[in-house]
């Protein structure tokens, strides 16, 4: 197998999952993630791994639940409408403490919306939509290479915290092709999954294993009461907030204007930043890689006299609320959203020159 490939983002997801040792994939057709499901349909049976097409996204997420309970690395992928149907399942996976990965290739909403790009699932991906009380890490790749590399990372974090992880892609990233270097990534060793359900005869100690979605409600030795379970979730959440924040900072130390963007919009912003710097404007960029936990500290660290922020999102503004929360009243936060697309139909895009225009408008004031 070639170490270097030229592939679409959706295919890179699949290669990343393979290098992570993913054993099972469950999916339902939906644009713009079809290439992912179709890749697994083609390749997994040949590799002796499990592919199963579900009857709905409700089916997909519950199949994921079953597979994860058996201790294998398993995943699904979907887009907005399917993600909506998966919310109940996400909440159950969090209660059951089952590690797995969901790749969410965003398209335009609300409702059936469009099948083209948008970044409108930030809020539901980072703040959850099922029965509340849980959090999950959300990774936001911004290149084909990262779509690949974040899959092993996502599986690792899922296993480490026994919690689902979301990889938030979008139609632009999924459909665009770039060079990909296939490499094996190294992570710290993880404890064996001796909680996995296999049949009583298959455990060294001969004792039964059980996975419940009623932890805290139905008492078990680990969590005899509801609050003992909630306390456990709280500790897990705090540890994720403390240890797992990831971001990329470019030229932020001295910048007077800091762009904040993730995923495909980070690519447009990077272009705009370079154009602005070529014109002598002191512009930097902060790209959250974990959308949850959000790099609020990194933003706060860069608040100094005269600094301003510009958030660019292909939506009407979702992440901007997290930036505003981090900044508070201490600096101005500007926003450029999907109404700045170059044309009004669903294929319109926010191009770097439009962002540059906005940068100049802010700097001129």
């Amino acid at each position, binding site marked *: 197998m070639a170490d270097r490939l030229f592939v679409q983002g959706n295919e890179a997801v699949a290669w990343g999952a393979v290098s992570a040792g993913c054993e099972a994939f469950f999916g339902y057709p939906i644009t713009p993630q079809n290439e992912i499901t179709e890749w697994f349909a083609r390749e997994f049976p040949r590799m002796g791994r499990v592919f*199963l097409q579900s009857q709905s996204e*409700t089916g997909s997420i519950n199949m994921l639940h079953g*597979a994860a309970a058996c201790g294998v690395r398993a995943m699904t992928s979907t887009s907005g409408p399917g993600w909506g149907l998966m919310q109940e399942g996400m909440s159950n996976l969090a209660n059951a403490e089952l590690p797995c990965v969901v790749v969410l290739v965003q398209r335009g909403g609300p409702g059936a919306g469009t099948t083209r790009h948008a970044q409108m699932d930030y809020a539901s991906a980072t703040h959850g939509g099922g029965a509340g009380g849980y959090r999950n890490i959300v990774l936001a790749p911004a290149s084909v290479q990262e779509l690949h590399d974040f899959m092993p990372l996502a599986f690792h974090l899922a296993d480490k915290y026994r919690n689902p992880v979301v990889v938030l892609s979008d139609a632009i990233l999924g459909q665009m092709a770039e060079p990909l270097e296939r490499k094996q990534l190294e992570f710290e060793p993880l404890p064996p999954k001796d909680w996995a*359900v296999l*049949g009583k005869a298959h455990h060294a100690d001969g004792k039964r294993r059980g996975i*419940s979605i009623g932890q805290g409600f139905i008492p078990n030795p680990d969590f005899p009461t509801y609050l003992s379970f909630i306390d456990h979730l709280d500790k897990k959440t705090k540890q994720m907030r403390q240890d797992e924040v990831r971001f990329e900072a470019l030229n932020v130390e001295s910048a007077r204007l800091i762009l904040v963007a993730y995923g495909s919009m980070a690519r447009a912003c990077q272009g705009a930043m370079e154009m602005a710097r070529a014109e002598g404007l002191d512009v930097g960029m902060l790209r959250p890689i974990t959308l949850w936990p959000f790099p609020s500290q990194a933003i706060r660290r860069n608040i100094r006299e005269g600094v301003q922020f510009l958030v660019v999102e292909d939506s009407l503004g979702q992440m901007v609320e997290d930036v505003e929360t981090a900044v508070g009243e201490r600096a101005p936060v500007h926003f450029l959203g999907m109404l700045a697309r170059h044309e009004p139909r669903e294929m319109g895009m926010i191009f770097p020159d439009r962002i540059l225009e906005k940068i100049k408008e802010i700097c001129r004031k």
Partner: protein
Amino acid sequence: MTDIGVKKELVAGRPDLWLRMENNPIPSCPGCHEPTAMRAILEALEELDAVGDAVMVVGVGCSFAFQSMVDLDYLVCAHGRPPDGASAVKRVLKGDHVVFTIQGDGDCIAIGAGALINAAARAEKITIFMLNNANYGTTGGQLAPTTPLGHVTSTTPGGRTPAHGYPVRVPELLATFQGVAYTARGAMNSPANYQKTKGYIKKAFAAQRVSLGLSFVEMLCACPPNWHMTPLDSLKWLEQTVIPQFPLGEFKDVQGASGKTQEATR
């Protein structure tokens, strides 16, 4: 354990798989048949020597409670989704596992109809047990797709009429699917029916063991508190009103299944 519990055990024995719980040996209501049905399943597993390879997939309903009472590997799924979870468990474990769901009628054919139908369409090699108490027991006895005509529930206070549709007969329905190997309906209201039902359960497991396709057993269960009857009256009502609308017996037993079943039962 109270004295009464011990005495019961002496008279009838009980499967090793029932765990002894300190406070609450059986969390269901007096006269409930769901533990009886669970017991039949456990006896069948013991008799088939399939305990170590069994994985039980629990739905949401009164049978939810069995997760803490049964000494088997288990997985609890969202309401209605055990066929999805069980399909994945079976395909991922790849071994000779016996994977079965235990679901109520609402779980199985109301909220879970899509999951069930499509597991049948995919010919999943799993066994589905539907405990049919003709209503939503856990939530206080509302209309379910399997409520018989005329039956009073908290959402059909005047009794079910055809305006609410007709009771669904799931084994008959599933029998039309090419990927379904075995379907039957039993009841828990008499020792004879109990024994017959246990025979169905064994055949269903056997069909799974030889990978014939999906197998399904419905078990009619009394739910005295929600039927607003004494346990004894519930038995009579089951006999007189429920069974006539839900005939007992086998509805599908694919060619050769019985022969193979017998081999596999040994």
